[in-house]
Every structure is written in C-alpha cells, then in structure tokens.
C-alpha cells in the first residue's frame, strides 16, 4: 500500500519534468518487421518483454480480456515519451534485467519462457521497485481512459463493471440495483472536452 503511494507520487513528479524538459523524438529504432503501429519509445525487444510481463500481471483467461487486449504495453510505450518520460531508463534497465533473470533460468528471453516460469521470475522480483512501477503502469494502461492508448475496447472498464464516463447521472442510476449500460466513451469523445485534449495522449 505504501509503495503504491510512493509510486503514484513518483509518476506524478515525472509529469513536471516532462513538460519542462521535453525529450527529443524517440531514439529507439524498430529492428524487426514493423508492428501494427510503430513504437514510440521502446525497442521491439523491449516491447516484447513488456508485453509478456503485462500478460502475466493481468492475464487473459475465463474472466475475459486482460492487459494484452487492453493495450497496456502500448500505453506504457506511449507514456514513456510523455508523462512518464523520467522512467525511460528505469524501463530500459528493468526490462533488460528481466531477460537476464529469464536466461539464468532457461537460457531464453523472458517472452519465450512458459507462463509458469514467467510467474516464477515475476514472483522473485515482487519486492523490487521496478515491479511496483510495472504493476502500477499496467493497471493505468488497463483501466485508464482509452484516450491514452490503453483500455482498448474498454476491456478494463468492462472487466470491473464500470458503466463509463457520463456528463450527467440520474438518481435511478445511483440505486443499489441499478443496471446501467456502459457508455463506452472516452472523456475526450465529448465535444466539451475534445478541444482541450492533453497533447498527443501524453
């Protein structure tokens, strides 16, 4: 709980850094066949590792889509070029460390481990600050407003039953047994706010 609070503070601190010291365009080059959308910050190898991690943090299973379908790794890649830019090196080093741990275990990168082995590696680093950061950002990328690139198809909001952003809510919609249909709209889908979007979803 305490660590989570510290993280949130740390994440918020970076927003100021990002705005006062805008980073140059991402220096990372995609070295493989281009993904469906070009990456903004991470290399393809880094992205593959990150995608494999978020797939275990919030897995796809009988309870529905997980962090992969929500695009949590895409959210993090984009945010590392903006609001979370101060964590760029933390991710570069942290993701490399995860592959070191994976290779020590089975001589393959993290993304190629079995799910059980991936869970074992993640459990071994649960108390590390980087793990807490990853988890916090994965939750943001799964349950945040889709404007920022995650929570695709409202996967996160549907998972927990959030009925969505509304500009007005009726008394009936606040009854204990109300069944309110989800809006499936971003805050910035509303005309009032669409003119004041935070830059580039960052």
């Amino acid at each position, binding site marked *: 709980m305490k660590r989570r609070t510290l993280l949130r503070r740390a994440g918020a601190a970076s*927003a100021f850094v990002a705005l006062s010291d805008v980073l140059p365009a991402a220096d990372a080059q995609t070295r493989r066949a281009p993904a469906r959308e070009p990456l903004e910050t991470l290399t393809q190898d880094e992205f593959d590792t990150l995608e494999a991690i978020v797939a275990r*943090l919030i897995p796809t299973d009988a309870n529905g889509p997980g962090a992969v379908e929500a695009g949590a790794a895409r959210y993090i890649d984009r945010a590392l070029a903006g609001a979370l830019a101060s964590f760029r090196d933390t991710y570069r080093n942290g993701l490399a460390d995860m592959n070191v741990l994976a290779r020590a275990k089975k001589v393959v990168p993290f993304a190629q481990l079995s799910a059980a082995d991936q869970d074992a590696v993640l459990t071994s680093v649960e108390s590390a600050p980087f793990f807490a950061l990853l988890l916090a950002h994965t939750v943001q990328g799964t349950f945040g407003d889709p404007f920022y690139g995650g929570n695709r198809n409202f996967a996160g909001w549907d998972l927990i039953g959030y009925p969505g952003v*509304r500009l*007005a809510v009726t008394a009936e919609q*606040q009854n204990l047994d*109300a069944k309110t249909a989800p809006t499936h709209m971003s805050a910035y889908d509303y005309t009032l706010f669409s003119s004041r979007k935070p830059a580039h979803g960052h």
Partner: protein
Amino acid sequence: MATELRRTDVVIVGLGATGGVAALPLAQAGLDVVGLEVGTWLAPADLSPDELRNNFRGWPQSVQKANREVPTHRPNASAPYSARPAIHPMMNAVGGTTLHYWAQSWRLNPWDFKVASETRRRYGASKLPKGTTVEDWPIGLTDLEPYYDKVEVEIGVSGQAGNINGRIDARGNIFEGPRARAYPMPPLRGTGFTEMMAGAARSLGWHPFPGPAAITSGRYDGRSGCVYHGYCNRGGCHVSAKGSTAVTTIPKAQRTKRLTVVTEAHVTSIDVDAQGRVSGVTYRKGTEEFFQPASVVLVASYTYENVRLLLLSTSKAFPQGLSNNHGQVGRHYFSHNQIATVNALFPRNLNTWYGLPAQGIAVDDWADDNFDHGALGFIGGGNLWIYSDRRPIAAANMSTFGRAPRWGAQWKAFIKENADRANTAYLQRTTLPYEDNYLDLDPTVKDPLGFPVCRITADYKENERRLADFIQDKMVQWYRAAGAIATEKTPVGTMGPTTHAYGGTRMGDNPETNVVDRWGFSHEVPNLGVLGASVMGTSGARNPTLTAQALAWRTAEHLAMNWKAIAVR
C-alpha cells in the same frame, strides 16, 4: 528594478477560497482591490473527467508554482526528513483549490471555539494533553454565525439544518450550534448506498444526516445543479455546480468594477515603510518585477505560503520576518488528524461508481465533546463520513483485504467480483497544536527563484493517536451494522503537507502567543491582514474551508467599516 504600479486601496495575495471571498465585501464597499493570483483562469473545458490526468498525473499542480515549493517535513527536530511528495496538496488558479476541492462546507460546532476552557470545566486542567498550546478562540460561534450565513448564500451551500435558533431538527445534525436560518438549498440527494448506511447508523441509535456542501442540489443563482458524474474529486466541475470562488464571489466582485484580477503574479515579498507599516507587495510576472503599492495588504495564499511569505519578508523593523517580533509566525501549526481510516468489503455491489465526495452521510455522535470523555484517555472526537465516489483505476487499486494476491489470475478474479463492493470512510478528528509542532523556512531546500521553501516539523501526539483508534472502532461498528464482511483500519500516518493545514498565524487577543487579533489583523502591523486556516487555533472534526471563508468575510467587512483607522495612505 521593480516597476512601481498605481496605488490601490487593498491588495489581496491569492484569489482562492479566502481571498476570493474577501474581495466581494471590499469591492461592494467601494474599495479598489487588486487581486494577485499566481495561477490562471480555468474554463469548464479544462475540467475534464479524466482520472489519469487528475488523480495520477497531478494536473494541474504538476505545471504550477505550488509544485515547485512543496514543503519539506520531519516528524520532529531530530528526525530525518520524510519523503517529499511530488505534488503539492493545493493548486494555483483563480479560485485556487476551490476549483477541485471536495466542497464539504461545515460550520464549526460551539465546543471547537472553547476547547481549553470547556475541557478544564468538564474534566479538570489535567485532562488537557501535555505540551498542547491550545487556547480558546477570541470569538465564539455566535460571532461567526452571520458570516457563515453570508458565505453559504454567496457560494451556494446545500444541506439540512439541524438547529435553527435552538429548534432541533433530527433530519439534520442535532449537535450543531444554532443557525439563524436554513441552508440556501436542500441537501444533495441520497443514493442506494448512502441510504443503506443511514439505516445502519439509526439501527445503532446514532443520528445520521446528509452533510453540507458548496455544491448546488438544484439550479442556484444562474448555475446548474450537480450532475453527480463522479469526477468531482480533484477534477473540478464542468457545469459550475461546485461553488468555487472562481464562479461565485470573484466574478460578482469584478462586476462592481472595483476588483482587478492579475493572473500569473508571483508575490515574492510584502514590503514595509520606515514606520514598519505595510506599503505594498513585490511580485514577478514573467520576467518582469512589479511593486504594487497599497494601503492595506491581505495575505490569502494558504497556510504554508502565508507563513513562508511573512518569514521571507524581512526588514529593519522585522528582522525575523514580517509580524514576527514575538516569534509566533509558524507556531501552533497542526494538520488534520484524518489519515487513519477504515476500508470495508461488502457481499454485494454498492453501485458507488457515480456521485461525489460531498454526497454522503455524516454521524456526529462521536465528534467534539458530544460524549463523555471522563473514562477516555483523550479529548475531542471525530466526524464519521461515508460517501458515493469511485473511479476505475482507484477501484482496480482497491485493498484485497488479504483475500487475493496483488496480480495474476486470482487478483483479476477478485477485482472482477469486488471492484464495486468496497468502501472507504473519511474520518476527520480533533487535532491540537503543540509546543514542538511548527513551520519555519527550510535551511537548504529552495524554490527555483532561490527562496527557501516552508519546512514542517510536526507529528501526531498521544491524544491524536488514541482518538484515531477510538473513531476507527466506531466506523468499523457502523460498517458491520450495514453488513460489511471485512474491515481494515489504516495507520495514523504523520503530519506531512496536507490540504487541511492550520495555524502558523494564529488569531487571539494575546500578542505574546498570537500573530493576528480577533479581526484577523496583525498585532504588530495594523494594516496587514491574514486570511485562511492559518489563523485558526483549533481544527474541529470537519473540513476547514467554510470557517476560513467566514473569517475572511468578517475580516474584510471589519476593514471596510474601519477603513480610516486601519488604512495607511
């Protein structure tokens, strides 16, 4: 070299909760007022329902002056510093933090004004905690009642009265002091969850009631009624249902043509003449520096900045900081004992996805001195508050009550079932000032202009800790009566930077122990007034803003009525 501007009658440093209120009676009295605000105007379109931006990325503080001067904190003079928060608890804008505050708008209760004498009378002097510097206020509730009333009408407060001229109404707070009349609007509506909790409180023999809020419960003064959309908490209101001074008293004062609002004005000092009277203020706007001469200066920039600005404004007459020749600036500081709370898990969905922190039910049976403390090891009490408010990232970050790990398939199954089944109470408790809790200037940490930031040296004492435990147990009892299947008490925490910061320029008749007199003017500098909770000597068990605003109106009205005696021309 500062550019000297045209003289004005009154300059107000900060157009937030209190400066924004004080401007109105001054302008209406025909005085020329310059309001200096370091933030900008924000429009409804700026106040989007965006949890990531508002609640996780610290907007708008992350790009503001406030954030470059977050106070440092240490629990006591020999302890190491606490981790410094990245986000300042308050924001800069015309309207200040009233743009995104919870807007709970309480009056203090009669006991809060005379904690010292009432404790001695009822329990004996030894009942007062060791080391406390608490004094009775120089005024009582009856002195402040007319000003509470004026502010409630101007900003639009909704609520249910519990005591009108001594006539008790059990629909409201039966423990409140007498009011002259009802609230300007009925309370915000109840929800399925809040009604369920009210029923549980009644089953315990307690007296639940809807709390007062500076939020419109219907159309009021040209403003829309609340839309309950769920992003009120740090998000602001896109329909101006929240009674921020930015949409109430400030524009009304501007319409008199007597108030000039200067935005992005960063005040760096309050200046004095050869006689030690205030002559005006110096501020920076962009790269330029200005001197604004004024006959009276009102400082209204929040507790930490009020204290810091006085301490930074040194002169021959005031070598230890303005109005600090008695060494009282920064003393009698305390923050609200409100961190320790209770989380509860219910066996059903609560449907609290919508609403706002001010849409809730209070219980005051365990507040103030409303119960016998004879056998208890503390004085004071707490206001129990439950409300309807939830957003998706926060919901996913819920406590798992020891029933699931923090990630993976089991965690996912847990939050899928329980994201709408948890609730967290808001428990505000009496907090006292102590000899060794204080504010001063940090010896090493500076803002980008090179000025020291404010340093907090303070921690909760035994009275606060015992009281927190007692109030948490009452809250557990309430949740259990409503059917909660699990509860957990969170730690009391420490006194770091907060939105409820009191003292530092305390109000009192004795200049040896107080910075301002009973009207809010400095004992040492008669044409300097101080607005905000920094003048409050006790906290009560409820949000401070309405009391700070009522005091601000009273100070402003006193100034207008005694202009010739106070102003230095």
